[in-house]
């Protein structure tokens, strides 16, 4: 039997954080690819400390619902799940640990699907910029790096006049990026896992956005929902798990 465990951050304060994990889990259950699909969280139950005990399958795929490689994917999740690397043997169970979602090659497609949803039925004229908005932090360069990586991959496809990157907690600051880009239409997509305080409040407030479409000076800003809540993220999670099946278990000598 095969199990998929999706690990999210979760929240003690609201349901927004864990909702996409539950929704993607349900979509993946519908495909029948895994015998079990189980949710687990850092700040909600079941905790990572105990979730593996609730799984019946011997072949377990753990996919972190996080955008970038960093503190959670490298320290917290392996520690709490008791993982030793990409493949961990635990009794009769084999646990395969996948990388975060943002670095996966399928991520640009999900971002573009999110753009497609936002722009459906909307006509634009003049130059168009796609701006990817990341949280970013000066504490870990991977957090911003993954946003640049996706921007580069989308830029290579030559769809938009510009593909830019802006952040909340590191340079370049998103407000300045939106203001400075030489395009009439700015499509702004938050590369976040879930809706929350930032996507609903701080970002619209800081940028003066009033909804999906805001006229701001001579620019029209199209503001999309976070990439992580897009239904196609479910396919990305399943593909991330599938990819880890190629990793061979580490053979340990008997002790």
């Amino acid at each position, binding site marked *: 039997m095969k199990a998929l465990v999706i690990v999210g951050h*979760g*929240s*003690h*304060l*609201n*349901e927004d954080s864990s909702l996409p994990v*539950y929704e993607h889990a*349900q979509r993946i259950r519908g495909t029948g690819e895994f015998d079990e699909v189980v949710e687990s969280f*850092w*700040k*909600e*139950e*079941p*905790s990572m*400390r*105990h*979730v593996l*005990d*609730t*799984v*019946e*399958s*011997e072949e377990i795929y753990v996919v972190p619902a996080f955008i970038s490689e960093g*503190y959670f994917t490298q*320290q*917290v999740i392996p*520690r709490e799940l008791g993982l030793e690397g990409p493949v961990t043997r635990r009794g*009769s169970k084999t646990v395969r640990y996948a990388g975060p979602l943002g670095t996966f090659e399928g991520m640009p497609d999900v971002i573009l699907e999110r753009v497609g949803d936002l722009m459906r039925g909307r006509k634009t004229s003049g130059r168009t910029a796609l701006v990817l908005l990341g949280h970013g932090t000066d504490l870990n360069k991977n957090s911003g790096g993954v946003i640049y990586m996706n921007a580069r991959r989308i830029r290579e496809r030559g769809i938009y006049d510009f593909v830019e990157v802006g952040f909340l907690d590191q340079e370049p600051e998103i407000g300045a990026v939106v203001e400075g880009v030489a395009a009439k239409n700015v499509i702004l997509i938050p590369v976040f896992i879930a809706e929350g305080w930032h996507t609903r409040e701080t970002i619209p407030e800081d940028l003066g956005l009033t909804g999906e479409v805001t006229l701001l000076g001579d620019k029209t800003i199209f503001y999309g929902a976070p990439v992580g809540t897009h239904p196609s993220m479910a396919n990305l999670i399943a593909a991330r798990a599938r990819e880890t099946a190629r990793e061979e278990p580490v053979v340990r000598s008997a002790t």
Partner: protein
Amino acid sequence: MFEAPPEVSSLAAASREAFAAWVAASAEGRLFGQVLIRRCSSGYSLRHAEDAGESNLEAHEDPRSAREIAKLTERGEYRPLKSSPNLRRGWEIRVSDSVELAVAMNYLYPAGIVHWHLHRGGRLGITNFRENAARQSGIYKRVQRLSDRGVQDAARACCEDAVCLKKTLWDVDERTPLEMRRGDGEIPCPEPCSVFISFARRVRLFEREERDETGL
């Protein structure tokens, strides 16, 4: 009549079969947290214990509907701690077998039945506060400096039945038992949870403030 449990290969499967057998062995049903589970002709019936005699309940057949039921209180407040004594009333979930029963129970009380099963067999591993704190990092690392008194106060505030219906089995450390009413419920708590650690961090901040003010 008991059916022989199917051959089980995993702890999770053994737990669900043991739980289903425990429920089936009681004519009046079993209480787990605030949920009453009864064997019925079509499988198992789950409802809020206070709705034991109610007949006009919102009916569910999908065991995963337990997630929505467990999410918000009667007044619509979010429930991050599923073992809080504020599960909403007015619903019944009917499931057909022990697998579906385990799915529903794991949304109502995540990992509850596996801990229950291990505890009954004397095999539940306990992680005391100090051991849990030692592996914390980032903003939670500071809980390592929480005093024994602080742990005791936090546990009394966070873990007694008025706040959480689990039976607290962990201690401050091996030599320092918690001085609290640990609870009489069926769901064991083998380790401080994330809600407790967040609270412990707050208590540690108060301790620091107090120390800074008194100069001690």
